[in-house]
């Protein structure tokens, strides 16, 4: 054995025993895990390390970028022409709505002023590009190429041309992490366009979404379109989110199992729009002091139809 015996045997000064060191380092790791998962107090450390890792990340992205650009360069003329035709067609078909939108918005403003209502937030946005999917295998996140330098902050909503794809959950100086709506921990408050039924949409794994906690007899059909309800004050109301694909009503369970698929190209890469900060919702009405009857529970509350 050439290597192990190379150093003089360190009889006297070996430091703490391996098991003691193991215990120390494992405890440190577990502490980090708990701090990050439970209390979310390690963001400053993450920012600091990210600053160091960023050049490495950028460098690692270079070969992939090169390949993407290279393949883009060799796109055939036919593909480009087809794309062009499709875009022109789409533009024509939406021209009617676009032309009228300005007029409608003005009219809306006037009517709202008449009704003395709070003006609807104008939607501003920042164009960004999805660079790549985060390496973490256990969550569905993507990295976009805009960060705090472009005043992007956690909580902002990310959409593409068809609908919502996710929400910014972390922002670094030049990059941001977007958690996709198909992530298991991501919840989107939605309502059904057809009847206005409100609920909350969760990721269900494998690129699907799930409407949880809706009664077995809830009025949901396959093909229903879900849009954001805007009740949370984070998502603008009316953004398309998902389409119901399957409804399983099993009387053995209290709730129906409703599977949906996202409308936007959530698992695809490309250009996205990070919507500007939505103005904070007015403060919630103060809790009623006297509670006459016991609460039904959170799940019951969400089920009330609009």
């Amino acid at each position, binding site marked *: *054995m*050439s*290597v*192990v015996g*190379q*150093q003089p045997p*360190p009889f006297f000064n070996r430091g703490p025993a*391996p098991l003691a*060191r*193991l215990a120390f*380092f*494992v405890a*440190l*790791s*577990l*502490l*980090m*895990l*708990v*701090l*990050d*998962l439970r209390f979310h107090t*390690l963001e400053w*450390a*993450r920012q600091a*390390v*990210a600053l*160091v*890792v960023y050049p*490495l*990340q950028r*460098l*690692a*992205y270079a*070969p*992939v970028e090169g390949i993407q650009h290279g393949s883009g360069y060799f796109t055939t003329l036919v593909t480009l022409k087809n794309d062009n035709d499709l875009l022109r067609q789409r533009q024509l078909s939406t021209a009617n709505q676009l032309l009228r939108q300005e007029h409608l918005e003005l009219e809306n403003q006037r009517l709202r002023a008449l009704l003395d209502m709070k003006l609807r937030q104008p939607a501003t946005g920042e164009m960004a590009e999805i*660079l*790549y*999917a*985060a*390496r*973490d*295998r*256990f*969550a569905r*996140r993507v*990295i976009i190429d805009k960060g705090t330098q472009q005043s992007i902050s956690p909580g902002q909503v990310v959409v593409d041309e068809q609908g919502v794809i996710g929400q910014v959950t*972390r922002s670094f100086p030049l990059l941001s*992490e977007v958690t996709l709506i198909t992530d*298991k*921990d991501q919840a989107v408050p939605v309502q059904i366009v057809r009847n206005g039924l409100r609920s909350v949409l969760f*990721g269900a*794994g494998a690129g699907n979404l799930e409407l949880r906690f809706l009664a077995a007899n809830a009025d949901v059909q396959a093909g229903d379109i879900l849009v954001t309800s805007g009740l949370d004050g984070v998502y603008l109301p009316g953004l398309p989110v998902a389409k119901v694909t399957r409804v399983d009503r099993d009387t053995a369970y209290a709730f129906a199992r409703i599977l949906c698929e996202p409308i936007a190209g959530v698992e695809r890469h490309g250009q996205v729009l990070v919507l500007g900060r939505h103005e904070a919702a007015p403060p919630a009405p103060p809790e009623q002091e006297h509670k006459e009857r016991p609460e039904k529970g959170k799940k019951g509350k969400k089920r009330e139809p609009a």
Partner: protein
Amino acid sequence: MIQPTHYSNRILRPVRDWFVWLTILLAIFLSLIPVGHLPGYPEWVALTLAFWCIREPFKVGMGAALLTGIVMDVGSASVMGQHSLAYVLLAFTANGLSRRILQFPLPQQALQILPLMLGTQLIMLATRMSVGSEFPGLGYFLESFSSALLWYPLTYMLLLPQYQPHEKDENRPI
């Protein structure tokens, strides 16, 4: 020049500290390449760490593993502590098994690296599943197999600087 062989009975030059850190940095770089969720993309960092923990148990240990783990936690946008915990346990096991593993020829070493890699992945899986993340599918474990396959070429590459003599001397065999 003696040709490099995989038998460890030849005398090697001592390893340089900067080379160890450079290879770990390179491994981090390789694992940061955004390949998406390509199944079977090797666990470069765990493999390199395991290599140095086995080859140089006095130099590379749990402290290095913790530091590397933190960098990987941030770089791969996962939970802080996930990689650190797995790497620390990997380093401990690799340090402890170093003498035993080095006795074997390289293909058999690779067979013993496989459970180490699988263990590392299982720890990460357990960490994330315990807080309710989704199961990434069995393809996740392919990474261990591709990593173990890389053990043979990686040993050559990482030991290359130690095969080189200080200065070429015709009269001395090393």
